[in-house]
């Protein structure tokens, strides 16, 4: 029997309302049962940790040879950046794997019809699947924070940077997870949903990278004396959108502005005619864009699921 005291204590648990979602509770229970969750976490930390060690060895050797003395700040920055890049790579590949089977798997295990005839709203189904997958990804990200923090030992990295990188990684995971669930709802086969998700991700990466590079090249090719501020603005925005649609370029650009201008939230852009303007830092635009896109994809998914098969 619950006493009033124990009940109020339970309700302080922030996960409580989320665990009211039956799907989230079931998935988390299933995911955490048995050795699988532990094995994935261990492998993930071993990969990230192994790479960090290698980079540390290579980094010390490289900084020694140039200055004869270890440059702590640079080494810290390189280590930090590398850990984040590895995490980004892993999140990009792990999140779809966690979500692309979420709804197609219910079809494959012949449990979808049972679920569908209950009163469970479609949005709760999608949210539960997404939440349980993302909760695990978040666990992976949080587990790697100590590795990111090794960089603190060398200086050159602030706590804000760690938080921003976490935010960008999380927004990436949310978007990729939503895309995975979307394809999982669209097709009844998990394999096909996986392929569709990865193809979409690779396309986004290729297009955004190519777009950013091309816009940059065009901007540099402009003749400063003849180009108008208007066309410069246009190219700047196009480039910005491409950069801010790709987590890797977003992180690189944010880092560059941070190093060059010492600002985290904004950066200054100087046009060729000498005027300057202040713009929001890429990570802010990225996070907003990815969250908005996630919401859109989420609604597309529930809309698709609401449709009764013809």
């Amino acid at each position, binding site marked *: 029997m619950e006493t009033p005291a124990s009940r109020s204590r339970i309700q302080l648990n922030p996960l409580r309302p989320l665990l009211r979602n039956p799907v989230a509770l079931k998935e988390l229970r*299933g995911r955490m049962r048995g050795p699988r969750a532990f094995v994935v976490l261990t492998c993930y930390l071993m990969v990230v940790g192994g790479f960090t060690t290698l980079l540390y060895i290579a980094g010390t050797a490289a900084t020694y040879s140039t200055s004869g003395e270890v440059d702590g700040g640079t080494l810290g920055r390189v280590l930090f950046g590398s850990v984040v890049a590895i995490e980004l790579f892993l999140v990009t590949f792990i999140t779809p794997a966690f979500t692309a089977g979420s709804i197609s798997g219910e079809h494959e295990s*012949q*449990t979808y019809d049972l679920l569908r*005839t*209950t*009163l469970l709203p479609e949005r709760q189904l999608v949210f539960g699947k997404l939440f349980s997958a993302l909760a695990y990804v978040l666990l992976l990200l949080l587990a790697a924070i100590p590795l990111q923090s090794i960089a603190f030992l060398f200086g050159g990295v602030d706590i804000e940077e760690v938080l921003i990188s976490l935010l960008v990684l999380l927004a990436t995971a949310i978007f990729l997870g939503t895309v995975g669930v979307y394809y999982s709802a669209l097709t009844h086969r998990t394999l096909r949903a996986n392929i569709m998700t990865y193809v979409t991700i690779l396309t986004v990466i290729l297009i955004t990278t190519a777009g950013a590079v091309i816009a940059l090249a065009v901007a540099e090719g402009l003749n400063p004396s003849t180009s108008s501020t208007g066309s410069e603005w246009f190219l700047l925005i196009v480039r910005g959108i491409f950069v801010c649609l790709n987590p890797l370029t977003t992180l690189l650009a944010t880092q560059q502005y941070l190093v060059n201008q010492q600002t985290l939230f904004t950066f200054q852009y100087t046009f060729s005619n000498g005027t300057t303007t202040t713009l929001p830092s890429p990570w802010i635009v990225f996070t907003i864009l990815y969250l908005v896109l996630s919401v859109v994809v989420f609604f597309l998914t529930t809309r698709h699921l609401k449709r009764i098969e013809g």
Partner: protein
Amino acid sequence: MSIDTPEEKVIETPSGEAATETPVLTEVLPELPTVIDEQDLIIETRNLSKRYGRLQAINNLTLQVPRGAIYGFVGPNGAGKTSTMRILTTLMKPSSGEAYINGHSVVSAPREVRRSIGYMPDFFGVYEDMKVWEYLDFFAACYEIPEAQRPGLINDLLELVDLAHRRDDMVDKLSRGMKQRLCLARTLAHDPQVLILDEPASGLDPRARIEIRELLIELAKMGKTIFFSSHILADVNEICTHIGIIEAGQMVAQGPIKAMRQQLMPHRVLIITLLGRLDDAKEALLHVEGVQGIVDLPPEEGKTRIKVEFTGEDLRMSEMLQALTSKGIPVVNFAEESSDLEAVFMKATKGIVS
């Protein structure tokens, strides 16, 4: 809400003493609490049709299931039973026509329909990584049962389907029959008024089949309407109050089982096994009203058997038995032929086979 677990299986013998041994399962007949009102339809379809491309799977089907009935939906493979059920359970849209459950249209009010029905598909899976109680807890939550009520509900449901001892086992380790019973418990989580069961007894051994049959009777006694499909005519014969025969997407015949038998099978068939005095027996039987003919059957284990064709109500059978016993004729077995419904079925579906 609450689900009444069945009372102890105590049989009140006429003399008033209670016998606690399990009843002979096949002999349990439905005793429905109320008289069924044939006009009060809880499931109703009007000119329901469904086509898959060029295949007309359901063709102008008019289905009428009165409240409180145990309705057996029978038909050969591919007749359209599963398709009909998928429409009734809001999983599929009809191509044309209407379908109502408890007055709610399956197309325009799917949520109300889902609230009224419990559905067990012909093929279904269970989650691999769940315990039995977690499985029921999950579905109870999906049916918006408040958390505080769930533990009690789960215990009641497990008790009802006789799985209380497997509460903490993993679902995928259960036997087929147990999974079937667990799924049935799941369909009851929200105390629906109608159960739509697609071949609930398929793939089960005779024992498990009888258990399911018994459970259905128990549920009908709780006031639930049961609409189930089956190939096994014995199931239908023994527990249904109503039957509908579907073939090639069309309803061949439907109605209360008695009326169906009389309509389609004017002759009823009785098999009598005797230890001797065959001629006396024939003589006695021919004097009973309604008897149409008597045929000798090959003897079995040295006992004489005859087949009696007759028309009319059950009263005729009792008169026949009386006629035999009053003359001291040694009757050892006296039963209506159980394949009776099979004959109804064969007769009803003959000629329309596509």
